[in-house]
């Protein structure tokens, strides 16, 4: 009941922060546009088939009528490829972070609230996981699970789960010391009750704002994976892969790599910036 109340609380707190500046609206709109373009675009816009080759119009520059963002070496429309690719990049990143939030957040809260042996064990496991750089871990997992949207998401989740667990644990540790937790315990409230009714609502804001920053990082990892050819395989090339494919023609037609690059950059920047603003770091 109180987690629900905390959720009702959230729009108020978020909107308070968000109202601070048109910049938030700017980035918010950017994200909404990109997301809409990637998820709804293929159904709504008259996009060419991203795999349709058109050798006559190969290497068309930006601004060519009919292919507003140009085409690649095989004549495939870049706008279409970028929007389709965006769907993959976004889905994988959002999925990995969502997984991280649920699994990592729960683990972190349990570790922070319970303390003692449970905390020690979970913390050691987190230490072990943190010793592996995000990309290296994702590389190893993805390559041995085999490339697919689900597996790549899982691979990146190996990074987001510990990241979230650490953050949730820190938050839970702080909340646990508060007197209202002691009061609930004095009334006879037990572990599960206190954890969900008191600890969770108080770290919820922290966890949700962290999502933005983490999505940015997840996208970088996913793009890196795809760039190395170990991410989601064609025919669902994500932005990273599109950039890799554009690498060969970088001297003749840089736009092939730069257009998806721009999409990637703007999306990551938007998530980072929104994350910073929501966490109160406006600089």
């Amino acid at each position, binding site marked *: 009941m109180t987690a629900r109340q905390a959720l009702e609380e959230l729009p108020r707190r978020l909107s308070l922060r968000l109202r601070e500046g048109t910049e938030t609206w700017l980035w918010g709109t950017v994200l909404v546009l990109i997301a809409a373009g990637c998820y709804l675009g293929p159904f709504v816009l008259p996009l060419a088939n991203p795999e349709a080759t058109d050798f006559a119009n190969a290497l068309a520059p930006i601004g060519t009528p009919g292919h507003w963002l140009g085409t690649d070496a095989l004549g495939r429309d870049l706008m279409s490829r970028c929007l389709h690719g965006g769907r993959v990049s976004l889905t994988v990143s959002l999925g990995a972070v969502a997984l991280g939030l649920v699994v990592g957040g729960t683990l972190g809260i349990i570790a922070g609230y319970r303390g003692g042996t449970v905390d020690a064990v979970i913390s050691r496991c987190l230490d072990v996981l943190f010793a592996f750089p995000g990309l290296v871990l994702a590389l190893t997992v993805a390559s041995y699970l085999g490339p697919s949207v689900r597996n790549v998401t899982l691979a990146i989740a190996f990074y987001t789960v510990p990241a979230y667990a650490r953050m949730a644990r820190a938050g839970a540790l702080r909340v646990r010391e508060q007197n209202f937790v002691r009061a609930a315990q004095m009334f006879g409230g037990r572990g599960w009750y206190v954890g969900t009714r008191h600890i969770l609502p108080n770290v919820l804001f922290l966890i949700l704002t962290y999502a933005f920053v983490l999505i940015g990082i997840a996208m970088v990892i996913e793009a890196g994976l795809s760039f*190395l050819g170990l991410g989601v395989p064609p025919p669902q090339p994500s932005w990273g892969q599109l950039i890799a494919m554009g690498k060969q023609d970088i001297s003749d037609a840089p736009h092939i790599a730069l257009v998806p690059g721009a999409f990637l950059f703007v999306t990551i920047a938007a998530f980072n910036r929104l994350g910073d603003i929501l966490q109160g770091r406006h600089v």
Partner: protein
Amino acid sequence: MIAFVLRRIVQLVPVLLGVTLLAFLLVNLLPGNMALAILGPDASKEAIAHLQEQLGLNQPILLRYLHWLGHALTGDFGWSAVQSQPVLPTILQRFPVTVEIILLGQLIGVVLAMPCAVAVALRPQGWLDRLLGLLAYGAIATPRFLLGLLLILGFSVYWQLFPSTGFVSLFADATGNLHSVALPAITIGVLEFAVYFRVLRGEMLRNLAEDFVLAARAKGISPLRAVLRHVLRNSAVALVTVIGIGFGPLVSGAVIVESLFSLPGAGDLLVNSIYQRDAVMVQGVVVIVAVTVVLVNLVVDIAHMLLDPRIHLHDG
């Protein structure tokens, strides 16, 4: 203080064990792949089964781990049948390249970040502050491979200053070496610069308000000297922390950069080994990387304590 160091080292042991175990598990949970990889996709089922038996792939996984660990502790990381090379020597041979670009990148980042942070701390919210802030922000939002591509576009294609591939060993030709690693190092350096700049700037601004700086200024020391003498030293603590936290992403960056610029480093080895499904090699690289990260964190912890004993006085 010795007690602190000893305690930290003791705490490391289970983590290191866990790290090696995890690396081993990640790579080895699918025995079929390894034999398949060695023999190729056309091998018969019997041949695969036979090789599996020979390589001991059918034993319980923990046993194989202990077996491997025992060998690893004596320095024997095994033999890669896929690439026909011993694992550890190959990795070590590639290490210098990776280390070189990492160090150069860090150097570029720190050397650029310090004067910028100082300049900006003396005059916050000025045009330089905003400009650099914006640049730093942009750099952080750009994945390294993208940045690398942009640099290639700029400095290899348009202005033919630096090569985009190839590596010349430091021992063969020093200038050639620097020439070949310039772009990769800059790619890494830009992101490091962005991170350090932001952290240093934040720390300096915080420290500038502190009493001892005000006291220094009251004594007549110019703001610049006050900054250099007191503020830098205290900011060093934050810097060390950031270096520690940033080491993991730095390694990831090295992997990407080596791939992009075709440098024969450990990261490139990792990627190629993954392409070739060379489990033994992948395992070796991953373990070494993870152990390095853990050790770097230890060094950072110790450096942290040396620089600012305040933090650790009551560590109990």
